[in-house]
């Protein structure tokens, strides 16, 4: 036994390592299989889960907590509707009926169920209508209200011994019709031949939860009363369900985080798809709603599939269809309610109609269905201006402005870059200040304090410390100077791009041939972006190109600043390679500027930047 357990543990651990947490999907769906019973769809779901667990372990791991919670909740719902020793919060449910009849009736009876109902077993003892009891059993667990409703819709065919008895029975039925104990009792029209020995009776509601079966001459012979039957599952269901929910909730953040990590592109993709689809997302649920109204058949299933395809391919059409479909369903719901009110009771009563979330089998439920239809209509009215009207306006407006859309897209991208750049720049400045000038000032303060203490005792040592403090202050100033150069170079602030580039060229350890013609200043952000771009290009030329000379040409004309940087180096500069050129391209992008690179192997390299901007007068601008 011990060996077996060890073997099991080893295998399990190995499988877990091989397939990850997703493997747990198999036992969880197995539990669901037991909970919900062996049906085609549960088996299918189980097989699907096994397939997913083995082929897509990542997906399985992400699905695991969702399915755990879902199964747990379903289990709790099930537990709430099943009898058992689980506690008084659980309502008792009906799993069978006891039938008792008084002797002397002399009739036999058969309960025939309407289509789709599950009253199956004949009461054997009661068949002779003489003695005792019989049981009507429902397949599965049925809540009392539903059970009574179904029984109520059952026809009871009866056969009586004599013509006299039959006449009596019919009289009873007629009386019943005249003064029905329950309004839902159908008219006894179906009993057509007074002399017949057989006929149809109906189960009428007695004070609930019992029923009386009107069959024999004595009328109130038969009493059907619900018998609660304990469910073997109820006791274990609740703890298992709660355990599953707790485990699922605990696992969820972990597996989701891992899933996000492994599929980084998925979330942005979904978000983008959601933005495209918008209200179209409602089409499939709406189509499923139609499934409940018109029943499940090839046509309606095809409609649901079509809805899914439309949602994915033509999201706008899907969004337009949602309010239209909802309106159709609402109209159908109103007709249903109206007909239920006016029609002969028997006609619809024997054919309960599912409408959305309501199974219409009584007048009250019909009214509820009407309310539901109103809700659908209201939702359609709310959606209408957001879908059909909006799209119609787009269609009637001028042809889609692709240029504008492209512009919006570009602005969104460049704004993101700009914000990101600004944030990281601030972080860099903060770090530099913190590690540089700030730290030195702290050291300075400490030195001066030490000097204070040492001055009376050892003036010489204090003097040395003062010299050190002065040195520290120089270094702090140097740090600040470097920092300021990186934020806003002084010459750029003082005199603008042309002079700043001249100063930059002087500081560059390569000969830079300048050809600058800038009669005025540019806006401060453009100046700054261009300056740092040029600085980076010059630094690249010094570091990578092996060039002997760099040529720099700056011109402004027709609202466009054009900067050309070329060198006689080895070439092979590639924006796709390395982040420097890409960074320049992104920074210029904020100003709708572009960067073009021509750098064949062996050189020469020529880089052109163009930024649309206006020339300002020299006096109006300062950094």
């Amino acid at each position, binding site marked *: 036994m011990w060996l077996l357990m060890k073997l099991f543990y080893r295998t399990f651990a190995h499988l877990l390592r091989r397939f990850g947490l997703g493997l747990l999907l198999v036992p969880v769906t197995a539990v669901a299989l037991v909970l919900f019973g062996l049906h085609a769809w549960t088996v299918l779901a189980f097989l699907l889960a096994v397939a997913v667990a083995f082929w897509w372990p990542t997906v399985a791991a992400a699905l695991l907590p969702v399915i755990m919670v879902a199964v747990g909740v379903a289990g709790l719902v099930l537990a709430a509707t099943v009898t058992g020793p689980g506690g008084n919060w659980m309502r008792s449910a009906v799993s069978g009926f006891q039938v008792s009849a008084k002797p002397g009736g002399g009739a036999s009876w058969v309960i025939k169920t309407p289509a789709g109902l599950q009253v199956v077993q004949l009461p054997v003892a009661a068949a002779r209508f003489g003695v005792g009891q019989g049981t009507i059993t429902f397949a599965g667990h049925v809540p009392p209200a539903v059970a009574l409703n179904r029984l109520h819709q059952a026809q009871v065919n009866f056969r009586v011994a004599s013509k006299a008895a039959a006449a009596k029975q019919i009289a009873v039925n007629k009386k019943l019709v005249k003064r029905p104990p329950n309004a839902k009792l159908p008219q006894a029209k179906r009993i057509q031949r007074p002399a017949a020995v057989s006929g149809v009776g109906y189960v009428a509601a007695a004070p609930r939860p019992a029923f009386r079966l009107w069959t024999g001459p004595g009328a109130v012979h038969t009493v059907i009363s619900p018998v609660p039957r304990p469910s073997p599952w109820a006791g274990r269901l609740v703890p298992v369900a709660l355990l599953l929910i707790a485990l699922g909730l605990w696992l969820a953040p972990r597996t989701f985080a891992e899933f996000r990590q492994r599929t980084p592109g998925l979330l942005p993709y979904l978000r983008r798809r959601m933005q495209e689809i918008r209200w179209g997302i409602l089409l499939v649920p709406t189509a499923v709603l139609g499934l409940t109204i018109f029943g499940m058949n090839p046509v309606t299933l095809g409609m649901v599939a079509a809805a899914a395809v439309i949602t994915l391919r033509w999201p706008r059409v899907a969004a337009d269809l949602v309010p239209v479909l909802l309106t159709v369903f609402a109209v159908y719901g109103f007709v249903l309610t109206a007909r239920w009110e006016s029609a002969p009771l028997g006609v619809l009563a024997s054919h309960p109609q599912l409408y959305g979330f309501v199974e219409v089998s009584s007048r009250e439920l019909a009214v509820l269905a009407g309310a539901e239809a109103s809700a659908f209509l209201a939702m359609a009215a709310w959606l209408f201006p957001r879908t059909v009207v909006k799209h119609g306006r787009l269609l009637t407006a001028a042809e889609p402005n692709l240029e504008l859309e492209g512009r919006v897209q570009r602005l969104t991208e460049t704004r993101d870059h700009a914000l990101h750049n600004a944030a990281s720049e601030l972080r860099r400045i903060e770090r530099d200040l913190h590690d540089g000038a700030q730290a030195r000032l702290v050291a300075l303060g400490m030195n001066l304090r030490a000097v204070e203490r040492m001055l009376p005792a050892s003036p010489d040592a204090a003097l040395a410390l003062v010299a050190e403090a002065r040195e520290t202050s120089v270094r702090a100033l140097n740090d600040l100077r470097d920092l300021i150069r990186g934020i806003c170079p002084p010459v750029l602030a003082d005199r603008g791009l042309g002079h700043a580039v001249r100063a930059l060229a*002087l500081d560059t350890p390569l000969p830079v041939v300048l050809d600058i013609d800038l009669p005025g200043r540019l806006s401060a952000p453009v100046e700054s972006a261009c300056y740092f771009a040029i600085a980076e290009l010059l630094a690249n030329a010094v570091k990578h190109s092996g060039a002997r000379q760099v040529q720099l040409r700056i011109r402004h004309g027709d609202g466009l600043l054009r900067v050309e940087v070329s060198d006689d180096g080895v070439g092979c500069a590639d924006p796709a390679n390395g982040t420097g050129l890409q960074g320049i391209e992104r920074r210029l992008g904020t100003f709708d500027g572009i960067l073009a690179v021509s750098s064949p192997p062996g050189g020469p390299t020529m880089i052109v930047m163009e930024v649309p901007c206006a020339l300002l007068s020299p*006096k109006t601008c300062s950094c």
Partner: protein
Amino acid sequence: MRVVVAEDLFLLRDGLTRLLAAHDFEIAASVDTAPGLLSALLTERPDVAVVDVRLPPSFADDGLQAALAARRQVPGLPVLLLSQYVEQLYAREMLADQLGGVGYLLKDRVFNDDQFVDAIRTVAAGGTVMDPEVVSKLLGRRSFEGPITRLSGREREVLALMAEGRSNAAIAQRLFVTEKAVSKHTTSIFTKLNLAPSEDDNRRVLAVLAFLNA
């Protein structure tokens, strides 16, 4: 010696005037704007001016511009520029008139008051004082152009120290050689840079200018 001080921050202006007074300078005027500086320079005609590059009204290079304007009207008016940063571009502009009497130092150099006062006196005497930072950037260049390429390494070193405003004696002390050797180097430098022997100080200025423009 009469000095005009131009500095817009009160604390620094106050410190500067006190430092200069302590070294027996006479403060002819202390101003805090560029127009004020220009009129003070033209009316007071001081022996030397100590000027902050960044001054009101526009807080750009107004101090530099005012000093240049004053030197256009009073050629060779000695000006020592102080700044939080040094730019070769500005150094060249100051030296462009080839008259000397120009200094360009980081404000930090004030910390060492002896050297600072020496620099002021050098400028007042028509010499040229460039901040070591400017000079080190010049030396950091990979290649030079023109006559400066003819200089030997040692001569370039001597020229760099000359640009910092040091006298031959100071250069000799710094390079651990005799003053005679230094003066041999300087003569050689002037020859290689095609500077005809005239007034010595002016040749020094021209040599520094050639160095800057290389």
